[in-house]
């Protein structure tokens, strides 16, 4: 019933309201599958496209891959409102910082800004974010900032409610040193498997490849997703 994306959801601050049916009390959530993979020369990021309010799919073509700067994106999971608000704030801060420094910003900087906000307001927020992008210093990087405000760099990272179902796939199929196309294929497969099993994930698979030359976005429509089961 609840379109919650994580097992350790904190206690709801509001008590039951008799005036409004339960489904209308549900937060709009990007119960989700998101992921990001580093490769030599950039990163590939991917997400599903389902936003839910309870059992109702509020948006079936959501774009959860949000640009923060020219070569830095974030993948949003958790509360739609919280993640949009945090992403907007970080976009502003990073833009200002980049102008001050007169240099394109580092992915690590963007990830740290997310962390600062997510950690400071950890009690109020429900946001699990993956920050990924390319910069001149360290090339392609993926940083995961899960709920609570931790930050860690990983070569491949998955997040959202659907991620539980694809950890096995990720661990057994990820190889270091993949090319951009291999990464895109890997992400498409992983997202498909998650969308197949997680009720809160679905719709289309959105992908993006970020390199020094820019961002290349792709959409894999529902009927074009790879088929794993013959049923």
């Amino acid at each position: 019933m609840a379109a919650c994306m994580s097992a350790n959801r904190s206690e709801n601050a509001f008590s039951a309201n008799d005036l409004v049916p339960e489904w209308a009390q549900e937060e709009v959530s990007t119960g989700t599958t998101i992921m990001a993979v580093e490769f030599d020369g950039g990163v590939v990021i991917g997400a599903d496209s389902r936003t839910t309010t309870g059992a109702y799919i509020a948006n079936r073509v959501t774009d959860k891959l949000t640009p923060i700067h020219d070569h830095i994106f974030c993948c949003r999971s958790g509360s739609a409102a919280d993640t949009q608000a945090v992403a907007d704030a970080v976009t502003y801060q990073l833009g200002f910082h980049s102008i001050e420094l007169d240099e394109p910003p580092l992915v690590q900087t963007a990830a740290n800004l997310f962390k600062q906000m997510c950690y400071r307001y950890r009690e109020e927020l429900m946001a699990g974010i993956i920050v990924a992008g390319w910069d001149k210093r360290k090339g392609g990087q993926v940083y995961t900032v899960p709920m609570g405000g931790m930050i860690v760099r990983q070569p491949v990272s998955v997040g959202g409610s659907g991620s539980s179902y694809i950890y096995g796939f990720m661990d057994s199929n990820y190889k270091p040193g993949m090319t951009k196309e291999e990464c895109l294929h890997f992400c498409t497969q992983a997202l498909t498997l998650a969308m197949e099993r997680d009720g809160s994930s679905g719709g289309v698979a959105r992908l993006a490849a970020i390199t020094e030359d820019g961002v290349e976005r792709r959409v894999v429509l529902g009927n074009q997703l790879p088929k794993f089961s013959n049923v």
Partner: protein
Amino acid sequence: MSSIGTGYDLSASTFSPDGRVFQVEYAMKAVENSSTAIGIRCKDGVVFGVEKLVLSKLYEQGSNKRIFNVDRHVGMAVAGLLADARSLSEVAREEASNFRSNYGHNIPLKHLSERVAMYVHAYTLYSAVRPFGCSFILGSYDQDDGPQLYMVDPSGISYGYWGCAIGKAKQAAKTEIEKLQMKDMTCRELVKEVAKIIYIVHDEVKDKAFELELSWVGEVTNGKHELVPKDVREEAEKYAKDSLEEEDDSDEENM
């Protein structure tokens, strides 16, 4: 060179008719009364040298440092009113620390010097405060940006340099610095040259005893700013003293 700004020099919030802010110029004179400090950037690092005049034999050796650590990878050499310089080094330290806390990596030196310069400039705008009476040289080294050298003066401007000098013998020091091919030198070679320049510009007649403060940051220290180790320092001072004896017609200071 000096001029009297009668009436227009009482506060930093007043311009003179010919467009000068005399308080800022007077602050720069305070720097010129102080002993010399130089900073030179080379291929793989930055070296600082300060001529620390010793006013009394009772002073403990090594006290009253004029080279500060602003961050692990940033050093600051100062000239002018030492108390003003100390307070600014605290400002610089806070800026560097806040930057790392907010953004997760070392502060780029250009940004740090601009921030501190902005702070110094703020004190040149109001009559309620006086400008800072010190100039300082900031130097850093990191893997990505390489060696960097910036100088900030009391007017609140920051410039990037390959080599610069501040204090009473800055003109003479600049002449010596210009003779060096610093872009091709390593830190180890440069340390000796820096010591030599300080010895050259030191005025034996007017200023008697002095202590040479040397520090460096670069590949040789793995990006950490620190005072030059004792053996390197002694070698540099020996080289400096020997070079002085050789040159009979060392260029004289105080043009």
